[in-house]
């Protein structure tokens, strides 16, 4: 090669790739002095195994570098050094057992990674119900002091309080959680100070992220909360042209308006519609507790209708008992039973009124676990089922069963008898506490919303027409 001809650009065929690779690495390391005029020393030919070793080493180095920069999740994909076929890419995806959707180090950004890892103990894999291992498993919420110590500078106190209240069940129900979240955000805005020459929208957005992640960590967001947060962010982004004080005022008004229009006023309109469907001598069956249904029953009672209510409850929560108390104090004649008595009660029922946590675009309803059973029994006895739901809970997702998307609650609640005191030590025993349930659209006779009484097939229309403007 000792001629002065300019070297022709090489075509990178697979045969020559390794040489290129090696010459490139040599260049990086500054070893080669190759230029067009100098002869290139032949590189030593490496065996396939040696080349693979070098590649793996470089991959591992890169992975470490990315982890230390916080760009890769810690429970990381399995690097299979023996991969020769494509099936291992599937393994990589499936190896994320036991990891939560939101990683703790994203929440506590300013802390060292090691500290945050110790705070969160993932659920032991053998106690996960295999059918639900794709969902975030239940973890006990952090104790108050721990959270305070670590999170105070990042997470506003009202959000902290909200998170803990939601986590221990003080605030339950999609409406309650949604309203509480928006009010907490109001306090966040009030205390927020934009740095000079920065847009409030962008900074607030950034500082809200860890707070929202904290709320998710306390308890996965309900669809209503998610919709409300989407609305909030949309409105926030439209404040770019306003000064800070004006923007804050605007946001307060928007939040208040949302709560008033979409929740409080909507409940009243829904109650009116539903009350018009209740007749004298009706026996209304309702399930667990829904604020919309409660208001509807009270309106109907005030409208001098004579009817009876049977509250079908589940034993895990106190919701049904609170509803019973409220209705009895109001003067309505009530009965109470558990869901195992649904067959006994459905024989005398004339209508079923239930609430929903969300309505999906294929007309299925997501509500408290057990509502699907109630709707199914009603359908089997030809009893109409009315679902009372505000439009802000409509979402464009579509689900076909209660398993792909659900929330797993505290398994200790299921272990309520002394027989199961040591259930953790029994290897083959798992406890499952599902929070939500999918009611198929064929069981729902009509959906009562503030824009009218709709059939289940109208949900995607509402989502398209109403949400695109306002959400």
């Amino acid at each position, binding site marked *: 090669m000792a001629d002065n001809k300019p070297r022709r650009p090489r075509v990178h065929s697979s045969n020559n790739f390794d040489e290129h690779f090696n010459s490139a690495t040599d260049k990086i390391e500054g070893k080669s002095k190759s230029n067009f005029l100098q002869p290139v020393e032949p590189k030593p030919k490496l065996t396939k195994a040696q080349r693979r070793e070098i590649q793996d080493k470089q991959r591992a180095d890169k992975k470490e570098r990315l982890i230390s920069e916080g760009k890769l999740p810690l429970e990381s994909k399995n690097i299979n050094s023996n991969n020769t076929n494509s099936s291992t890419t599937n393994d990589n995806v499936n190896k994320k057992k036991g990891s939560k959707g939101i990683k703790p180090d994203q929440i506590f950004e300013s802390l060292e990674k090691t500290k945050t890892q110790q705070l969160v103990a993932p659920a032991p894999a053998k106690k996960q*119900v295999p*059918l639900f291992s794709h969902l975030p498993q239940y973890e006990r919420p952090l104790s108050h002091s721990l959270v305070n110590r670590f999170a105070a500078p990042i997470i506003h106190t009202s959000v902290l309080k909200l998170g803990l209240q939601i986590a221990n069940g003080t605030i339950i129900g999609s409406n309650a959680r949604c309203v509480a979240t928006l009010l907490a955000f109001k306090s966040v805005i009030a205390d927020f100070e934009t740095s000079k020459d920065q847009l409030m929208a962008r900074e607030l957005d950034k500082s809200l992220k860890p707070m929202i992640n904290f709320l998710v960590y306390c308890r996965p967001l309900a669809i209503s909360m998610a919709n409300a947060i989407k609305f909030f962010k949309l409105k926030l982004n439209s404040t770019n042209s306003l000064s800070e004080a004006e923007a804050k005022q605007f946001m307060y008004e928007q939040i208040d308006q949302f709560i008033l229009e979409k929740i409080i006023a909507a409940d009243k309109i829904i109650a009116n519609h539903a009350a018009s469907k209740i007749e004298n001598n009706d026996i209304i069956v309702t399930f667990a507790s829904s604020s919309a249904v409660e208001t509807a029953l009270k309106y109907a009672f005030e409208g001098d209708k004579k009817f009876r209510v049977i509250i079908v409850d*589940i*034993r*895990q929560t106190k919701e049904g*008992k609170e509803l*019973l*108390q409220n209705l*009895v104090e109001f003067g309505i*004649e*009530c*009965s*109470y*039973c*558990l*869901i*195992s*008595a*649904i*067959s*006994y*009660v459905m*024989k005398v029922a004339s209508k079923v009124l239930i609430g929903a946590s969300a309505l999906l675009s294929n007309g299925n309803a997501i509500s*408290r*676990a*057990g509502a*699907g*059973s109630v709707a*199914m*029994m009603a359908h*089997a006895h030809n009893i109409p089922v009315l679902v009372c739901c505000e439009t802000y809970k409509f979402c464009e997702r579509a689900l076909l*069963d*209660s*398993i792909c998307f*659900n929330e797993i609650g505290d398994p200790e609640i*299921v*272990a*309520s*008898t002394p*027989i*199961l005191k040591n*259930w953790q030590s*029994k*290897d*083959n*025993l*798992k*406890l*499952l*506490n*599902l929070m*939500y*349930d*999918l009611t198929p659209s064929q069981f729902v006779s009509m959906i009562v919303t503030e824009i009218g009484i709709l059939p289940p097939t109208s949900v995607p229309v509402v989502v398209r027409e109403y949400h695109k403007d306002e959400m």
Partner: protein
Amino acid sequence: MSTNLDRNLQIQINEVTTKLRRRQLVESYVTASEIIDLLRKVVSSLKWTSANAVIKIVSEVGAQLSAAQSLQLITDNIVKRVICVIQSTTSDSDYDSDSDPKSLILEELREMLEEISSIHESICKQAPEHIHANEIILTYGKSYTILEFLKQAARKRKFEVVVVEAAPSYSGHEAASLLADAKIETTLITDSAVFAIMSRVNKVIIGTRAIMANGGLIAPAGTHLIAQAAKHFAVPVVVCSSSYKISPLYPHEYDAFTELNSPAPILHFDEANIADKSVEVYNPAYDYVPPELVSLFITEITSCPPSYIYRLIAENYQSKNI
């Protein structure tokens, strides 16, 4: 009692009656063996006069036992079977020339008692036929027959069981614990999650308290919900039961064979501040499950669909008696 029975025997009858009244006889096979035993003693203590006289005495004892626990249909079933046995042995043979009819009857009753102890074996022998590998089986509450059934199947097959806890009795908790101890993968769920999980269940295997003449079930409260959900998801419902639970009665009303238990486990009086208002709290003990929702009965005699039950009744309870 109108006839004079031996005093010791009367005491024994009263004992069993008290146990029934106090709901101390819980498991059906225990109840059945006690009643058969008692009736055997009654028959053996009698002087043989005529078949009808013996039948009359047995009926009176039976009436006393039924009155103690009115919905324990097993008592009625066993009494009817014993009467049927008496009738068939005395009408088949000519007892003037034959051996003592009383000993024949006692022999039959002894066989009946022995059969009771082997009923579970016969039912559980069929277990591997109905369960395949990697199935998810759903069961409701605790039934001794079902537990034995599943344990027997687990010896040959690997499958998972989902147990529904059956509030407010929480009998499912004990069942789940026992199944887990028998090394079967068990998941315990609350009653509210039945509809959610039913789409992934392959089979529902339940026990029952009684089987009515039309093939319907009188089963612990909540079973109707399970059966209806299974129908919606096209999951077969298999009922394992012994044949002495088959009753010749028809369920003329949905709540004719259920009773309402104390509401305290559901709503304790200090749980809701409603003391001065009248609130009805329902705690039904049993559900009626219509025969359309049941796919298969597995008894120790045979496996059959609900439409075959009338044949089993005709075999065991002769029409003259019903």
